[in-house]
């Protein structure tokens, strides 16, 4: 009997298995469940960063317009198209003055003067575009994070992926629909004057006065789901935006018991608001969110307090969510949901129970088969299999890996594949015994000859699993992880642990016939 080897081998096994048990206990707290088991939302959002660029150019256009007014330069129009800014003049007299103004804007590149169309064109420089786009994505990430924080989700994950994508994961969320609305809303709040000098009817027939636009008030009937649209003719220019907000919260109208959102502006915003209301007493000021008109109250007097209300037939939930998005600020550009994977909590629970049922049934079938086919040696393989599962649990817990449904499938597959090593060894031993070798030699040769084959076989599976891990998304990654750990663990249990048990069996005096 190889006393020395057994003296350190057995303690080593106990140590490793003990550590695995220690780390995986209690299992419920240690193993993180993936979204597909826990239920939740996985979103891939694309920030339409080019829209941030065009709105930046639009802002520059209105700035330059104001500057040209101030300097009394004669011009026809200043317009923006994507990342291009176009100054249209009446003649080339004002050309040099316009050029002088643009010289101040180093981020624009002159595209030249077109005599026929009398247009002076400028395009935003590449570097500036890259910067605006990068900022837009950073800002969108921050905004989304702050919205989710205020909404209250346990363990959300919000990450940037690649150039213009944001991955949001919200585990265990109960109302995914609501969360999606909260995240996806651009929340661009604007105050615009109603154009009361022109006829809306004429405008709708196509004669929209320059400087004005038609926006709609969309109302959804809570009972039937029908949408009604009321048109408004508004001045294009936004006098005030949500950029100046400091706070927004839900309030309840005591008279009608209707929720609304009250907002307060910061100092600069309050000043602007006071000026607007002072200059436009008696006119209507429309409150617009994401190009949707909410209300158009008449300005009765100057409002110096910097406070306003947004009413709009809200439910309490809607008002609360609107307050959240306003507080968190507008997204710098609209976002598009590129990918949405939502799993309801009940399906996740179902998957857990079904997954484990198949692990147990599949495992039992293998265990029974091994005992029936290999007798006592089969039992040894089963002990190794049990240790394998314990090790798998321990390693998963130690690395705080995420268990997914395909991950559970990986455990099942590991059970099927782990006994492969034992089968290879046992078949070799049987061959050796058939050739008349004594048990000790047969075991020795069996393990030795099977070892390289086992190594080969497992290496290929691990190579495949690593490629899978590189390529796979969430749930599939979980599969690659459990499969890899399971196979690595099987190298230890099927070869090392089994060998020790076989040696112990041999050491029992009088064992002439190996039960295999």
């Amino acid at each position: 009997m190889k006393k020395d080897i057994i003296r350190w081998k057995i303690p080593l096994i106990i140590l490793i298995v003990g550590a695995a048990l220690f780390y995986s206990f209690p299992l419920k707290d240690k193993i993180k469940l993936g979204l597909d088991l826990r239920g939740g939302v996985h979103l891939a959002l694309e920030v339409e960063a080019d829209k941030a660029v065009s709105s930046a150019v639009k802002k520059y256009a209105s700035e330059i317009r104001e500057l040209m007014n101030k300097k009394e330069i004669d011009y026809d129009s200043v317009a923006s198209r994507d990342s291009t800014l176009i100054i249209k003049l009446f003649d080339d007299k004002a050309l040099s003055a316009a050029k002088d103004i643009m010289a101040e804007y180093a981020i624009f590149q002159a595209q030249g003067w077109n005599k026929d169309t009398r247009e002076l064109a400028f395009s935003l420089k590449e570097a500036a575009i890259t910067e605006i786009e990068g900022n837009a994505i950073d800002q969108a990430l921050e905004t989304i994070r702050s919205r989710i924080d205020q909404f209250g989700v346990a363990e959300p994950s919000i990450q940037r992926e690649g150039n213009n994508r944001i991955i949001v994961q919200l585990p265990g969320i109960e109302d995914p629909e609501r969360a999606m609305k909260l995240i996806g809303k651009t929340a661009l709040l604007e105050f615009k004057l109603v154009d009361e000098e022109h006829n809306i009817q004429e405008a709708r027939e196509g004669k929209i006065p320059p400087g004005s636009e038609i926006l709609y008030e969309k109302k959804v009937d809570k009972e039937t789901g029908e949408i009604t649209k009321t048109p408004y003719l508004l001045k294009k220019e936004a006098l005030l935006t949500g950029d100046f907000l400091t706070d927004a919260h839900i309030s309840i109208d005591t008279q009608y018991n209707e929720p609304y959102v009250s907002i307060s502006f910061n100092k600069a915003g309050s000043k602007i608001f006071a000026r607007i209301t002072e200059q436009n007493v008696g006119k209507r000021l429309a409150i617009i969110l994401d190009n949707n008109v909410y209300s158009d109250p008449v300005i009765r007097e100057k409002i110096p307090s910097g406070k306003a209300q947004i009413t709009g037939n809200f439910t309490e939930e809607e008002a609360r969510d609107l307050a959240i998005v306003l507080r968190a600020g507008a997204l710098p550009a609209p976002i598009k949901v590129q990918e949405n994977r939502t799993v309801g909590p009940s399906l996740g629970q179902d998957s857990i129970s079904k997954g484990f049922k198949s692990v147990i049934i599949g495992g039992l079938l293998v265990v029974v088969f091994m005992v029936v086919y290999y007798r006592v040696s089969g039992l040894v393989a089963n002990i190794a299999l049990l240790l394998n599962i314990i090790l798998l649990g321990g390693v998963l817990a130690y690395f705080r890996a995420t268990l997914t449904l395909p991950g559970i499938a990986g455990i099942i597959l590991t059970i099927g594949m782990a006994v492969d090593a034992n089968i290879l060894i046992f078949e070799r031993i049987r061959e050796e015994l058939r050739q008349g070798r004594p048990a000790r030699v047969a075991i020795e040769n069996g393990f030795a000859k099977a070892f390289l084959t086992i190594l080969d076989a497992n290496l290929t599976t691990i190579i495949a699993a690593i490629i899978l891990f590189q390529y796979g998304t969430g749930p599939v990654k979980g599969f690659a992880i459990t499969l890899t750990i399971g196979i690595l663990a099987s190298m230890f249990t099927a070869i090392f642990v089994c060998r020790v048990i076989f040696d112990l069996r041999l050491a029992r005096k009088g064992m002439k016939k190996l039960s295999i």
Partner: protein
Amino acid sequence: MEWIKPGTKIDFVGKLYYCLALSGLVILAGTISMILKGGPNYGVDFSGGLLVQLRSDKVVPLNQLRDSLSKIGWAKAQIQEFGDGHEVLIRAPQSSEAPEELKNRLIQAIHKSFPQNNWEERRTETVGPQVSKELQKEAIIALVLSFAAMYGYVTYRFGWLWASGGILALIHDVWVTVAFFSLANKEITLPVVAALLTIIGYSINDTIVLFDRVRENLKKLSKNTELATLINISVNETLSRTILTSFTVFITVLALFFLGGEVIHDFAFALIIGVISGTYSTIYIASPILLLWPAKRTRKKK
């Protein structure tokens, strides 16, 4: 217990051409099916679109559901029913409409058509055109990469000639699985690609076990043994192991297929086909293919 008795002598090599014909037939049928259907049947991951899984407290009459979907212009939507008839999977292809809008319209239409039912949204998946294209590209890269990795590994262990046989067997397995998916009208999704990669890892491992034995016998048996005989002996010697491990993997995958639930169903289906094909291809494709190369060169390998 012993299923495969020692001394079993099945003439595998002699049946090579029948087997190649059988494989060819399956692959041909699958390929024709794919051509007729305009390519492999991609699921929502790769083709984009919307997938909604709904559960109702009552049995859902599929005809009525189809009618209500037709009303909103979804005559082409696929409807699949699960287990006790309370649960349905609805799949709409990519369209110009935003997926969220699509889904809202769907839910509204269903609530309208079945006012008495209580509906629970169990799963929603929407994949935009950009993401689906990326996933497609990544899946192909992953498959090609794993073929290359396996080829590299087997070349390192056995030389390129043998590696070529092994890779042919792998391509065979993946193709057969995809063919069965097309024939069974099942969709190729992300988990199915994961299953394909697993099949690649599993099938080559089976092949390596056999190659190991062939190489061992090349050294052991007399130089006069014909290659065909030698391969036959090797296949027979490893047959017991091949059948046994395939069997244990097979029963676990079967447990997954029948008990794992619908989310994992297609994944398990792919593995079932793959395990069968992988075992078969080791015996009938990978090793007999060694014969198709000049015998001398094969023999010369150490």
